[in-house]
């Protein structure tokens, strides 16, 4: 079974600075997808960014980018120019290529200091 580990329960960043959230996973599969979801206080799960394992290029979405290290099974999220609205819980998630369910990590609470 796949597992997703987010070992940092909390992080804090100064507004306009850059922060990196860590995630590691364990799988025996070679094809899969990885995601970062944001959960603000409203509790809705919002997709931030996704990465296909077969792609070597790291995904980017505006201020959000990932560092995908397939051999190390590491998938970190970098948030540049942090904004107050980035404060939320962030979940790393894994999805098998052939299976539609998501396996989530425990999440990390990100606070942004003005």
């Amino acid at each position, binding site marked *: 079974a796949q597992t997703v580990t987010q070992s940092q329960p909390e992080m804090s960043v100064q507004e306009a600075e850059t922060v990196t959230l860590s995630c590691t996973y364990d799988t025996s599969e070679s094809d899969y*997808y990885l*995601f970062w*979801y944001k959960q603000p206080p*409203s*509790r*809705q*799960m*919002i*997709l931030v960014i*996704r990465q*296909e394992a077969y792609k070597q290029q790291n995904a980017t979405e505006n201020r959000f980018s990932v560092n995908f290290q397939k051999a190390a099974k590491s998938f970190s999220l970098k948030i540049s120019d942090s904004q107050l609205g980035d404060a939320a819980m962030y*979940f790393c*998630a894994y*999805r098998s*290529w*052939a*299976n*539609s*369910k*998501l*396996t*989530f*990590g*425990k*999440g990390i609470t990100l606070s942004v200091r003005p």
Partner: protein
Amino acid sequence: EPEVTQTPSHQVTQMGQEVILHCVPISNHLYFYWYRQILGQKVEFLVSFYNNEISEKSEIFDDQFSVERPDGSNFTLKIRSTKLEDSAMYFCASSTALQENTEAFFGQGTRLTVV
């Protein structure tokens, strides 16, 4: 922008009672899911549903749980006899397909409180 809609936003029920949580997935989506999140814990997969049947379920999804797509738009989660430990946020999600457009869209959740 299309979205997944869940009702009610908050449901309080007495232990032992049946509860039905409602979801309207995005209209052209084919895969439907329920997840739950106990307060302060990670989001856990409950069940996936495709082509009018359950395609996968977790250990959490025991005989007390059932899902149904009673018409072309709704997707419901029923808990037959609620327990205190069923108190959680329940998220419905939907997606178009497995390989293409792999994003799962989540609803805003239903907070279930069992007293």
